[in-house]
């Protein structure tokens, strides 16, 4: 079953291998599959200026394999919407704030797109943001993502009109973080409780020791 591992500056050294696999799959998905050729790198890793200590990652893992993930970044710092896509946001200006993050590089590997992996990652996303006190998350996505978010129970407001990016109509939008959305997407994902792990590798190891559940 898919679980979601949180990787932040605190534990990224211990999770270097998983993070590297996420970067490799990102290259496979965004350069190979979607054809964002300007991201192409000879080491086969998609790593950009926002992959720094300010980023947090939610990585979807099933049977020790990375099958997807996403990146969250503070909007008070220069971020992708403010630097690369300000024209996708209508006149009022880029949405930013202490409790607002930006989500980028979301993907689930091709083989796992028909099952519940998407729902699990989206559930992990709402849960993580609730726990962190995040109120909204902005993102630029292909338009066909909107109905999927809606169906997952997410409240999404558009920040501008659809605009062509890399040949696809994309939109800047803000997802509201809420208990109601988490409940809804958890039901869709077939989850009763948490599916995220924030543990560092050492404590995961300890948790792995068989124990009697209370």
């Amino acid at each position, binding site marked *: 079953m898919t679980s979601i591992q949180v990787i932040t500056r605190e534990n990224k050294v211990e999770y270097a291998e998983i993070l590297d696999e996420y970067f490799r799959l990102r290259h496979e998905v965004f350069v190979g599959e979607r054809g964002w050729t300007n991201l192409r790198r000879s080491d086969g890793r998609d790593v950009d200026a926002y992959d720094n200590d300010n980023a947090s990652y939610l990585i979807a893992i099933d049977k020790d394999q990375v099958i997807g993930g996403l990146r969250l970044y503070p909007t008070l710092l220069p971020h992708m919407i403010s630097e690369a896509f300000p024209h996708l946001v*209508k*006149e009022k200006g880029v949405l930013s704030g202490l409790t607002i993050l930006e989500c980028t590089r979301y993907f689930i590997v091709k083989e796992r797109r*028909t099952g*519940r992996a*998407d*729902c699990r990652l989206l559930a992990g996303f709402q849960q993580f943001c609730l726990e962190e006190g995040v109120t909204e998350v902005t993102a630029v996505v*292909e*338009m*066909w993502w*909107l*109905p*999927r978010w*809606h*169906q*997952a129970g997410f409240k999404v*407001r*558009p920040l*501008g*009109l*659809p*605009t062509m990016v890399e040949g*696809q*109509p994309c*939109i800047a939008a803000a997802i509201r973080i809420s208990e109601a959305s988490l409940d809804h997407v958890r039901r*869709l994902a077939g989850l009763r409780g948490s599916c995220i792990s924030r543990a560092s590798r050492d404590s995961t190891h300890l948790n792995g020791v068989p124990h009697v559940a209370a």
Partner: protein
Amino acid sequence: MSGLSLDHTAEAFEFIEELDRLATPQDIIDAMERTFSRFGFENFIIAGLPHPDQRIESLVLLKKWPLGWYQRYTSNGYDRHDPVIRLCRQTVQPFEWSEARYDPETNPKGAEIMRGAADFGMKQGYCLPIHGLNGFEACLSMSGPSLDLTAQTKPALHLMAMYAFERARLILAPSPRPNPLTLREQETLRWAALGKSAADTGEILGVTERTITAHMGSACQKLSAANKTHAVARALQHRLIEL
């Protein structure tokens, strides 16, 4: 020019805000009629895309269609041949009806349907496919005798149509229909799609050939398929199995 597109932005955002306040399907129909008529649209329909064993009538959420056309469309099962619906299943991007190509040789009903629609004033159209989670598929299709579809109007229409669809879905809350096939039936069809016989499949899954034949029979029945090949084609077409 930028003034014009700014107008469409404001219009789209007002429409989306208005949708949030609407409580009934009729309210949505009225709001869509008011807003989309400014772009030349007179008719629209929001419907789920039917599985082989479903009728389109049961999946229509909202519609403003000429009654005569709706009766003709449903009584003839036009949704099975409609080029617009076929393209809907294949793309996530909105398209104009004129982009929904069909081969008169293999789909003779395609021309009949498009001509029939035009006779009812539905000459041009714009269709937004919806591909949701867990295989949920639907569309919002709008039409009129002469449409204002340009690079300036399409982004606003795209966004408004998506939110109109969402409001209708929320109010009418059709739970996405689960896959009618059991896991075993899906597995049986997948192996058949890969060229395996019932005996091969039985061996692979560790059951008898007779059991596989029974799974296939039940899958055929659920898909209204005449035989194994037909069942595999239908299951793939409706994304009930993946290879």
